[in-house]
């Protein structure tokens, strides 16, 4: 117990640093994947056949292969195969490569959620906008968009919570997120080695984070309860 109390502040400090990296990857992914997913959704709904075919293939590839493999390929392929290490070295290079992988992968999942949300809005809404002389983009942003958001909050919440935990996959390219930080104490770091409890301890971080997210998403869902 005395040993635990001595190790605790050291571990917590380390895990905090790791969790900061986890949160950074989480937010960067959301900021990139929200708009990119919408663009992919429009691509896959396009009446221009080559475009919709192309986007559907992309979505198939990114949803059909493990994110961990995508991380490895995106990080190592340019340097090892093309001899052009575009990501740069060190933690910042790893973060950049991880961000790109996560954004594209999650945008593909989001695109399908958006598509369902948009197609779930009755066609009469668009027709009502058209006969009132609105343009297609006015109809999307002023009529369809909010109705789509209302529909997609439950499936989006699922994906967002999964994303928090998926960020741990980035340790495969040695991104120093929280699991990586916890694992360091098994191998030996800052005078602590062979300790597995720091790894168990990381669960609390995820749990608290997802608790807060659940509350926020629930509040957003409630806020949109004013219409049906």
């Amino acid at each position, binding site marked *: 117990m005395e040993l635990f109390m001595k190790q605790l502040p050291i571990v917590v400090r380390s895990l905090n640093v790791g969790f900061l990296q986890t949160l950074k990857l989480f937010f960067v992914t959301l900021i990139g994947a929200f708009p990119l997913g919408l663009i992919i959704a429009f691509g896959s709904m396009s009446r221009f056949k080559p475009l919709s075919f192309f986007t559907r293939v992309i979505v198939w590839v990114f949803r059909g292969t493990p994110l961990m493999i995508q991380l490895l390929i995106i990080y190592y392929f340019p340097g090892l195969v093309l001899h052009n290490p575009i990501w740069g070295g060190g933690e910042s290079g790893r973060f950049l490569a991880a961000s790109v992988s996560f954004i594209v992968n999650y945008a593909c999942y989001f695109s399908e959620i958006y598509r369902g949300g948009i197609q779930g809005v*009755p066609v009469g809404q668009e027709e009502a906008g*058209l*006969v*009132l002389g609105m*343009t297609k983009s006015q109809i999307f942003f002023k*009529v369809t968009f909010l109705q789509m958001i209302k529909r997609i909050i439950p499936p989006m919440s699922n994906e967002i919570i999964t994303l928090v935990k998926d960020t741990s996959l980035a340790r495969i390219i040695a991104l120093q997120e929280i699991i990586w930080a916890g694992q360091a104490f098994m191998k030996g770091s800052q005078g602590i080695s062979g300790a597995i409890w720091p790894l168990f301890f990381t669960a609390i971080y995820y749990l608290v984070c997802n608790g807060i997210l659940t509350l926020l998403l629930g509040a957003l869902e409630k806020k949109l309860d004013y*219409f*049906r």
Partner: protein
Amino acid sequence: MPILEVEHICKSFDRTEVLKDINFSLEKGQVLSIIGSSGSGKTTLLRCLNFLERPDRGVIRVDGKTLFDDSDPTTLSEGAVRKKRLHFGLVFQSFNLFPQYTALKNVMLARELLAKEQPDYKARKKEIQEEIQAQAKELLTQMSLADRMDNYPHQLSGGQCQRVAIARALAMEPDILCFDEPTSALDPELTGEVIKVMKELAKQKKTMVIVTHEMSFAREISDQVIFMDKGVVALSGKPDEVFDADHARIREFLGKYNQ
């Protein structure tokens, strides 16, 4: 000169001919009702007038101006169609109000968006906004909805929703207001409210095209009636001429309503 002229309108979906050479015209301030059984092409005709469907052939003229002509490609582009739609208003069977906006905002929205395209919008923003709001409030009051302006569609009855939808269509000041079975989704009591409003509009000499299954209403309100059957105008004329015609198909059709 008629305000609306429709000539040789044809429309097929895949290989099914829905409209076969439809011709009619309508004078300003008059009411035209289109009756006929389901699948006779009434709704498709109305949707062609509002450019929700593009006719395969034919000409549509409003006030002498050609809005659609299958042989003139300049009338067919998407951009050209948008402004032309404003000659027509359309009230849907299922209302299609925007659920996230109040009744007042539903009436104002399209006008606001259109006003933003005016060159002097930035300079007169406040004034324009007030004009649009005043007009919307007046229309809703005219629809006896003065105390319902701040309600959302789901807080309104079907009859109230449909009256908001009529106000919303009127706000764009269309030359011709079209109704696609406006009371079919309503129970008889609520149907009465909507019919009352439409009669009032007819009295104000609003030009209207009404697709309806309410036969006594059609007979009472119309200046002209078209009976459609299997994609053609089977019979047209003054209400009495159509409803009392000694014509096998319409006797059969009307017979079903009198059972």
